[in-house]
């Protein structure tokens, strides 16, 4: 080369393919371009996906309520809608300064999250929000159904679900899994209606108030158990832990207590 090219880009392209610097630079360039592509697509499409998920969650809540015997008539009587309430998990009362509209903003603030002591952190969450939006159905003054969003660590990732409790705050009225990433065909079967059909009518606490609910290993043998999923012990255990955490004192325990005492 008598006249070496001054342009670094052309000099780079003219390098032999097997040279170490070209290999490294090509690897870096390809990764960088791909990273930009993927990030752009994800960031740009996230709002639309979030809207889809919200719509899906609403549909699941509607299906969950429809699946509870006698609920559809009650819904019609009460005007056809559930009321939503933001509760303060610490006190178990309706939150005074946070509403459904401002909930998202409040949860973006780290001050509104509480770290969970590892010994109490059954569901593997690490921290939980101080506020949660629950759905209530009232029959006159009495609460006849409450829908509680719950979440926790599953086998492959976060499991999110909505638990429906009857007015006694003890009998399960139903469960809906809103998102999970468990293994399809094994743990992924928590999504199936056939498995969820085993939940309604089960009880969460015994007469002394101790939480007894669990997902059994194998078939359910008591009123506190639902059938386990064969081949998905970790997912089944995760469901047990999620339920125990959220029904317990760190979760909705204070709220459930307040409702039982008729203070809500």
């Amino acid at each position: 080369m008598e006249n070496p090219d001054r342009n670094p880009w052309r000099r780079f392209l003219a390098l032999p393919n097997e040279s170490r610097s070209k290999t490294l630079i090509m690897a870096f360039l390809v990764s960088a371009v791909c990273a930009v592509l993927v990030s752009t697509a994800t960031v740009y499409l996230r709002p639309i996906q979030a809207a889809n998920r919200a719509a899906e969650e609403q549909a699941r809540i509607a299906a969950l309520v429809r699946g509870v015997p006698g609920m559809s008539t009650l819904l019609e009587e009460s005007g056809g809608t559930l009321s939503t309430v933001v509760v303060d998990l610490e006190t178990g009362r309706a939150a005074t300064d946070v509403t459904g509209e401002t909930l998202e903003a409040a949860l973006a603030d780290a001050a509104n999250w509480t770290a969970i002591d590892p010994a109490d952190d059954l569901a593997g969450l690490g921290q939980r929000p101080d506020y949660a939006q629950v759905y209530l159905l009232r029959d006159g003054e009495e609460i006849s159904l409450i829908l509680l969003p719950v979440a926790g660590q599953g086998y492959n990732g976060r499991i999110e679900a909505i638990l429906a409790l009857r007015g006694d705050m003890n009998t399960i009225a139903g469960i809906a899994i809103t998102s999970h990433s468990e293994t399809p065909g094994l743990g992924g079967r928590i999504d199936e209606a056939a498995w969820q059909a085993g939940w309604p009518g089960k009880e969460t606490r015994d007469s002394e108030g101790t939480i007894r609910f669990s997902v059994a290993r194998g078939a359910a043998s008591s009123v506190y158990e639902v059938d386990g999923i064969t081949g998905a012990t970790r997912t089944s255990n995760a469901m047990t832990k999620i339920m125990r955490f959220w029904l317990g004192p760190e979760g909705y325990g204070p709220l459930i207590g307040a409702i039982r005492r008729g203070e809500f």
Partner: protein
Amino acid sequence: MAQRSTFWSTLTEPLVRQNPVTLQILGICSALAVTTSLATALTMSASLTAVLTLAAGLISVIRNHIPGTIRLIVQIVIIASLVIVIDQILQAYFAEISRALSVYVGLITTNCLVLGRTEAYATHNPPGRSMVDALGNGLGYSLVLLVIGGVRELFGKGELMGQQVLPLVEQGGWFTPLSLMLLPPAAFFLLGLLVWAIRTVQPEQAEAPEHSPPLAREGEE
């Protein structure tokens, strides 16, 4: 004119004569998994064709500058990025179908059909031809998926694209759905019959037997 005819043959060869699924038996895992209905088969076909065509184009553009030592990983990175983008688009605009396809869109990354075409063709040919070849192979894959998906949905549910075509017995018609069609083995049976039919019409596709009986054959994939 000659240019156009080679383009045309590059595009149409993989449809039946060189079909990647029925001749090369590539990419059958997803072909079997997503064909319970025509709508999912169609979405999967479109996704794979888009990924394959774009990946072939991109790889062909940089083919003279891909170092041999990291050739495969560069191709996989490009394919995987395109798959993620397509998956995100499906989740945003076709949420319902995206859920039905679950992990299989992500698995396009590991579909040997895609890497096979980019490695065997796009790394040796200019972008235009590579994309035509990729499109042809994508359409060949789509053709098989649509045939199997259509048959399974029609005989498994009496529907096509969710529309009732054959009147069901439960609704006063004459058709009893074959639930076997919706189970995974049916896809194997149909694919086997399809391969048999194509090789009967085009005997040159049949492979010479590798062994003669009574030698026991090792299990193959």
